[in-house]
């Protein structure tokens, strides 16, 4: 299968240049659910490791298959080394021919790969223990409100993914961190959720509810009392009490969640961070990708490119030259004779149309966002089962022929 270059080459995203650049420290893979983000993140990480980077990949997807494809029984909250075969081609296999830097003589840098899966409760617990004295920590960890906060909130996973990213970045054990983002309601959630959680924890309402509520709110008087009684009515007094004690314990420990969220946000904008948007070639997914590209630009976050996953390129040659309409006319002309040829022609027509739709979606993306570079990964019938499968996806990402 060739890489069906039409529509992709002029604006091809140079994945290898991104991974090889020592200045690239964090790559965030984002996109809507079900587009293959996790696999893309793992494939990028493997490729980077085999090209000499000390790489760690954080996934949020509990799919055991992915762990197994990396030779691990399962992933947990600690980065685990992924056993890599000795690099026989020592990175050269992955080099573009134009890329002639360090092609001669210099010993290949020894890359490595670690993988972990985010456990949001454990990460949250760690953060609490790190910042609170044992007694406070116990108070927080046993509060029913905390339990739900740390396991059930839609924003917590995003927040903790960013928290973990910050920790890994600070530890400096790795020179490249690849992050898979949580399957959010929408791809944008993961940018907003940490801020939303931060804003809430620092917000007016929580200050108002907290027993140490600042004086300013007390001055607001009657209106506020009404609101307070409404809140009490809705959620019940027990709930309010748990919330209040939670907030006061939390507040003294963290000082400013908002500030913390903002620090993470700054980390994402820092030089060395690059975003890779992942999409599949259908209307909804490409629209979502388009929103994301726009949002990254608005927030001045650097977009490395768009990975269009599971495409259906046509092989070059006589097949590619036979158009859909011609194939269908030919099939019709055969009627009941030659059933095999009829089936093959109809199948071909369907494939050509599918490819046309894919290219049209990519062209539309290019015309809306001319700056976006793209690369595609052809659909595979089977899921990835081992490092070889991941490596193949990495090769496709790097634009190599297979």
């Amino acid at each position, binding site marked *: 299968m060739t890489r069906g270059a039409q529509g992709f080459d002029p604006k091809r995203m140079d994945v290898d240049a991104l991974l090889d650049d020592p200045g690239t420290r964090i790559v965030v893979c984002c996109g*809507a*659910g*079900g*587009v293959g983000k996790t696999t893309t993140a793992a494939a990028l990480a493997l490729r980077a490791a085999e090209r000499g980077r000390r790489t760690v990949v954080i996934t949020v997807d509990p*799919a055991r*298959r992915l762990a197994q494809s990396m030779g691990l029984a399962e992933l947990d909250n600690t980065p685990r080394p992924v056993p890599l075969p000795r690099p026989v081609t020592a990175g050269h296999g992955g080099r573009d021919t134009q890329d002639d830097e360090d092609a001669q003589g210099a010993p290949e840098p020894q890359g490595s790969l670690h993988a972990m899966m985010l456990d949001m409760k454990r990460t949250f617990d760690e953060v609490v223990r790190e910042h609170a004295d044992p007694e406070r920590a116990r108070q927080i960890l046993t509060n029913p*409100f905390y339990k*739900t*906060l740390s396991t*059930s*909130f839609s*924003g917590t996973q995003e927040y903790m993914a960013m928290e973990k990213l910050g920790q890994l970045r600070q530890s400096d054990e790795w020179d490249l961190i690849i992050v898979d983002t949580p*399957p959010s*309601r*929408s791809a944008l959630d993961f940018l907003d*959720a940490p801020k*939303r*959680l931060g*804003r*809430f*924890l620092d*917000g*007016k*309402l*929580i200050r108002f509810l907290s027993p140490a509520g600042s004086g300013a709110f007390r001055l607001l008087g009657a209106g506020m009392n*009404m*609101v307070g009684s*409404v809140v009490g*009515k*809705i*959620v*019940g007094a*027990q*709930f309010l009490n748990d919330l209040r004690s939670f907030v006061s314990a939390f507040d003294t420990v963290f000082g400013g969640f908002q500030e913390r969220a903002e620090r993470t946000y700054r980390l994402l904008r820092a030089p060395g961070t690059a975003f890779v948007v992942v999409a599949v070639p259908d209307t*909804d*997914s490409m629209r979502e990708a388009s929103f994301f590209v726009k949002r990254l630009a608005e927030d001045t976050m650097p977009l490395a490119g768009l990975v269009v996953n599971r495409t259906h390129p046509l*092989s070059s*040659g*006589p*097949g590619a030259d*036979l158009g859909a309409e*011609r194939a269908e006319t*030919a*099939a019709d002309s*055969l009627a009941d*004779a*030659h059933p*095999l*040829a009829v*089936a*093959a*022609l*109809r*199948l*071909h027509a*369907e*494939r050509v149309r599918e490819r046309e739709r894919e290219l049209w979606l990519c062209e539309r993306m290019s015309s809306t966002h001319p700056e976006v570079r793209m690369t595609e990964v052809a659909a595979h*019938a*089977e*899921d990835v089962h081992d490092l070889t499968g991941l490596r193949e996806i990495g090769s496709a990402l790097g634009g190599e022929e297979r």
Partner: protein
Amino acid sequence: MNEREYGPRGGGPGEAFAGARLHIVTGKGGTGKTTAATALALALAADGGRVLLVEVEGRQGVASLLGSAPLPYEERVMLSASGGGSVSVLAADAEAALLEYLELFYGIRRAGQALTKLGAVDFATTIAPGLRDVLLTGKATEAVRRREGGRRSSGGPHRYDAVVMDAPPTGRIGRFLNVNSEMAGLAKVGPIHKHAERAMSVIRSERTRVHFVTLLEEMPAQETRDGIAEIEALGLRSGAVLVNMVRPTLLNEAELAAAAVGELDDVALADGLGAAGLDDPAGLSTALAGEVRAYALRHLLELRVRGELEDVGRPLVELPRVEGGMDRSALIGLAGRLNEQGVRG
């Protein structure tokens, strides 16, 4: 007056839908949940049924599917079905549901607005554990219970014959549906506790089914199996497995098997291409044989995935892959296919 009882029916897809009034549609991201949920709503509305389709993810997926402007927080008839049937759509949103809830139960819309200013949006959507989910499921289950003649009427016919919820994906469905009991555990008393319990009683009812949308691919099928196990462990009822985007079978079994191992009769293929007047039949035959082989491999994998799904023991219902764009007429076609398979019992 349109109240219909869907009689139980042994075996077949009908069993997965029979008697259900709330259909919760989940599935791995990217499997076409919204399309499947909309088609199911249309199918249930055939022959004069009144169906409400509730969207809870705030993505305006139904509006985008129907090519309409974003939908407001309001039940609005968006599709009509045969015999005067109709599908209303509600794009539920937690904040609006909270304000409505306050007004409905306390007549305090103004306080609600003050709450909004204070950050009740954040309160509802981010922090209050599952409050957002309680409000959303609460809204859907209220529509399930609602009867003609307003809130006080208890004996009138139901406002809707069925409610279909385009629910969160399999990764979050258990948490979403069970958050009511989590919430009920957290807020041990008070109106929201009651609200959560009421919603939960509908979700746990034997007239509620959770359907799973999947593709004939490994990961969505795996998530479907895991999801069914999770739902059943929570004491909820799984319904059917909706297999989406099914491709037509173009080859017979022998041809598939031959093509998969690269032993397609390429002489016969080249003959046929020649007979159709195409240039370079031999070269073209090699190219097309490669495509047929890829198709055969994929098809055999799909058969294996289908077999694994059948082993779960839930009825499989198929939706064909729609070529080109999805629009109303394509949705009507899908709904027809669902009815042919007996989703109305």
